[in-house]
């Protein structure tokens, strides 16, 4: 999925996968921060959004 989205032009860093066990609260915190930073660096998503206000 990541590959295909990348292929169509959605930056790979917009999609993250991770494995966290229910005891790993700290890893969760760390990953959440990482994900946010990665997406923040990319700026707002431009594609695939359906904006009916624009079309209407």
């Amino acid at each position: 999925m990541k590959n295909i989205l990348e292929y169509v032009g959605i930056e790979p860093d917009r999609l993250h996968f991770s494995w966290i066990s229910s005891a790993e609260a700290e890893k969760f915190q760390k990953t959440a921060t990482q994900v946010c930073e990665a997406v923040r660096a990319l700026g707002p998503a431009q594609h695939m959004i359906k904006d009916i206000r624009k079309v209407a």
Partner: protein
Amino acid sequence: MENQEVAQKIQEVAKKLLSEGKVSCVIGFEKGTVPMRERPFFAYTPEEAERLTWTSFCCNNLANFLVRRDLGEAGKVAVVAQGCVSRNIVGLIKENQISREQVFVIGVPSPGMLDRRKVQAEVGAEKVITEVSEDGEDLIVKGKGFEERVPRKKVMRDNCYTCVQRNPVIVDELIGAETEPTHGGNIDKVSAPWEKLQADDRWAEFAENYQTCIRCYACRDACPLCYCHVCFVDEAQPQWCGKTQDESDVLTYHVLRAFHCAGRCTDCGACESACPMGIKVRRLTSKIEKDIREMYGYQAGMDLESKPPMSVYRPDDPQEFIK
């Protein structure tokens, strides 16, 4: 073997099967009403079998008709299959849509089917073609006030050019001898032009490619993999994909459809041939095909035994993308 000879042989085999009552129906091709459009034909009697033909324009995937008809009622049917079609039959057997006993495969090594749009472009978009015949490695294209020879290789369908399996993988009766497995094209190159681009440009290319889509779903309906009773685009609760011409709706449809074919697509090109707008539908599916091949070392429908990668877990499955 020349296509005409193959056609002759197909007729003979079909007649024999039908008259001996071994199958109730032979699914093959007959001559269409317009040039370069051979069409699927269902022969039920030895007389009807005489209409069966074989040319370089047999672009539909006949495996498609195996799932969509009620085989329980029809009993055993025979189907004319080249490499990719036979791979799809294998896929359908693996997915329990049909059983091996229900189909009689009349195997034909593929001559490499031709793209009628390319032929049209070759003689000029505005010329009206009235007759096309084959002469060895050339096509003879006739129309009002012109006659041209076009080399087959120049107008071959993209997927046939990069085909990796021209010979049928399962066969009950083989017509002609097995041939070279490929036509020499490099399958990895199909998605290459896009892979080099930056994300935004890639998106632009992608949107441009599908921009003319009219959402007739011919690509889906021509595809032997798309046999779901209710397709996700038709689901209303929840609605995954709007029904409008909006870019996001069109692209969602294409991305998800392609993704549903992951690990199953045999690159038969039926979607691209069916598209009335000439969209390069394979741009997406062939990329996924390549990924599956590189990540899991799997090619769909090559044999009856191997397990499709999307439905089994192996400890050595790639997982670099997971943090």
